[in-house]
């Protein structure tokens, strides 16, 4: 064994003993079982949180791409299958609809010293979740292609169409735009973004009655259809993974993709330096003369299960606080747009920050929004394939929503 590797081994021992000294993180009893989505930011959080494992405390984390389909079932069980879960604007509502999350005020008073006010998601005065990052779909563009087409960076969707036309006319790319238009949740989200960009309202004020069958809805659909003219014909099968792959392959020049993918398309993997070096980010475009970016702002956070015992809830909260600590954010500055105190703004996070600064709306936290989102995602594909009119598509969405909302007891 040479000197260097001896040094490395002894350093590793020192580190290991240091971390075992910290193990437990002050968790006296109880066990924390965390559930979260699986992307770089949650991986960093999970590894920071599970460092508390040991020394009488049990902290485990399950990272799962399908986590949003598991939360409600996991929290309904008593004792819960997971004591704390990653939630977002929309999934917290699903959890709250069934009253499955517990207020965190007492735990924050005891252990939440480092939290910033804006991290606390309050509903009716009670903190129901602590947020750690912000996310939004925003514009990704290829500077080299836009320059070659002799165009500027578009700030409106009308501009996006004009730039795409120039790119196609110059023969640079046949399908310059990509979008997460996969039928289902993704397509529903694209509609929500564009409709809010038009200033639309989903429901009649103060009720669960749908209100999307209007001129703004038609304009939204027509803009989406116009964008798809510049997309790969397979667009109805494209989710974020597929769009990221198309981007990294250099097949597209403009897309409205998640901020959480900005790091992934500039990480020096899966693409060429030329493509990565020319990948730029901006706020989501506005549309139809509107002033706010056509996107929705999302926060990601953690909620604790109501059915968790007091000891487990405390253990979970401490583990989460260690997971989303300023030290973790400082060590993983490029992984996300952290909302955590002291986190530096990352260069690739510009799109999310600019979209928020531009006044984009947060994703609506309404109890019946999930049902509406599902109906939109299921009923839009026919219109985008030219099989039915915009009015018919909107009428279909409303009818599908009404049937589902009646079953859920909202109407």
């Amino acid at each position, binding site marked *: 064994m040479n000197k260097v590797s001896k040094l490395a081994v002894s350093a590793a021992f020192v580190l290991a003993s240091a971390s075992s000294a910290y193990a437990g993180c002050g968790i006296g009893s109880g066990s924390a079982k965390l559930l979260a989505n699986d992307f770089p930011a949650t991986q960093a959080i999970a590894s920071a949180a599970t460092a508390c494992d040991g020394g009488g405390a049990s902290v485990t984390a399950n990272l799962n791409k399908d986590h949003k389909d598991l939360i409600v079932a996991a929290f309904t069980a008593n004792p819960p299958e997971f004591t704390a879960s990653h939630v977002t604007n929309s999934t917290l509502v699903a959890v709250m609809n069934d009253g499955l999350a517990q207020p965190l005020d007492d735990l924050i008073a005891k252990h939440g010293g480092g939290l910033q006010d804006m991290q606390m998601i309050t509903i009716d005065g009670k903190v129901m979740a602590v947020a750690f990052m912000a996310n939004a779909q925003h514009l990704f563009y290829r500077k080299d292609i836009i320059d070659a087409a002799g165009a500027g960076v578009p700030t409106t969707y009308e501009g996006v169409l004009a730039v795409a036309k120039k790119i196609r006319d110059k023969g640079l790319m046949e399908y310059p735009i990509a979008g997460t238009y*996969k039928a289902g949740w993704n397509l529903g989200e694209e509609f929500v973004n564009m409709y809010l960009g038009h200033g639309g309202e989903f429901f009649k004020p103060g009720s669960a009655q749908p209100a999307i069958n209007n001129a703004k809805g038609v304009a939204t659909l027509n803009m989406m259809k116009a964008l798809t003219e510049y997309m790969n014909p397979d667009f109805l099968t494209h989710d974020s993974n597929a769009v990221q792959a198309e981007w990294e392959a250099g097949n597209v020049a403009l897309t409205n993709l998640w901020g959480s993918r900005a790091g992934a398309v500039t990480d020096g993997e899966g693409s060429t330096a030329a493509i990565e070096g020319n990948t730029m980010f901006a706020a989501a475009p506005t549309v139809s003369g509107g002033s706010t970016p056509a996107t929705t702002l999302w926060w990601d956070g953690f909620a604790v299960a109501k059915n968790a015992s007091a000891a487990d809830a405390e253990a979970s909260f401490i583990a989460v606080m260690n997971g989303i600590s300023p030290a973790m954010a400082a060590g993983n500055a490029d992984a996300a747009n952290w909302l955590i105190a002291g986190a530096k703004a990352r260069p690739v996070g510009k799109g999310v920050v600019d979209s928020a600064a531009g006044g984009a709306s947060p994703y609506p936290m309404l109890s019946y929004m999930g049902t509406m989102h599902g109906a939109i995602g299921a009923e839009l*594909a026919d219109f985008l394939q030219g099989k039915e009119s915009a009015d018919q598509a909107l009428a279909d969405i409303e009818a599908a929503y009404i049937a589902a909302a009646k079953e*859920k007891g909202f109407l």
Partner: protein
Amino acid sequence: MPHRTFISFIWPSALAMLLFIALPIVSVGMQSLFIAHEQVIETVENCGPFGCKTVEMVNADATAQLRADEPLGRFNGVGTYTNRNHLAFAEIRLALAEASGPGDFANRVLNLPFYKALAFTLTYTFVVTPLVILLGFFIALAVNRIPGMFKGPTIFVSLLPMIVTPLIGSLVLFWMIDSKGIIGATLQMLFEDPGLSLKASSTLTWLTLIVYGVWHSAPFAFVVFYAGLQTVPQDTLESAMIDGATRWQRVRYVVIPHLMPLAVFVTLIQLMDNFRVFEPIVGFNAQANATSLSWVIYNDLRGSDGAMLFGSAAATSMLTIIGVCILLAPVVIRTWRANRRVA
């Protein structure tokens, strides 16, 4: 057989069938008659990193009491079955009254999610089933003729499509038929159409799913028929040869009648399997162009963020079971009659 013996033989399976088949179906049937309680909605202030807003949310405490009193939910009778997302009686009546012709009526009906799914499910079932039987039969005939030393490897290779998990098989093919995948790019070259995409149009998506279905299920029919071919009476075949029957005549008048009971068996299994078509739709991301009844159930259970529609999923499940029964009825009745004649 004395009744006692018969009962002591049958009771373990009867009990298992009751526990694992009958009871769950009854439970699903019950579930389909109920919907969620009326939600108590209240307006609350919601604050977060993007500011404060007043929002309407469910008061979970208020609905908890309702739920404790009636855990199944509100009784809705067959309301879920007849609503727009299932049999859509009201919409069909409206279509009948307003449609300008049979074409318009069909369009209106096929715009409803249940009938859209049913259309694909039935097409898939009735195209894939006969093709699987035909293809399986011809593969079996061919394999039966090849020399002994090649038989083992050939059978193994022929069985591969069935060994691959349907979801994985369809995902692999999904990437192969991509316009940049090996199959997709080859097709573009063959048809000299750079815009050709198997994923973009309904017709081509249906075709892809059907081809996948045949590819996946043909080995099952092949294996059954191949086993059957080993039992074809050689005497009859030889007599037919002496009588001057051609190869085709021997197949037509000796082999096929001998394999008929097996064909009925394969048809039954394939009708049931194909009516439940699901994995390829997920694997091929085909839901924009093709949905099946099973996919509709899946979508109800995990389509949107936590907004699961248990009653709706249960209703579609019951309708699927009824559909399977209707499909199988002719085959089962035929078999029953044939057995009675024998007895």
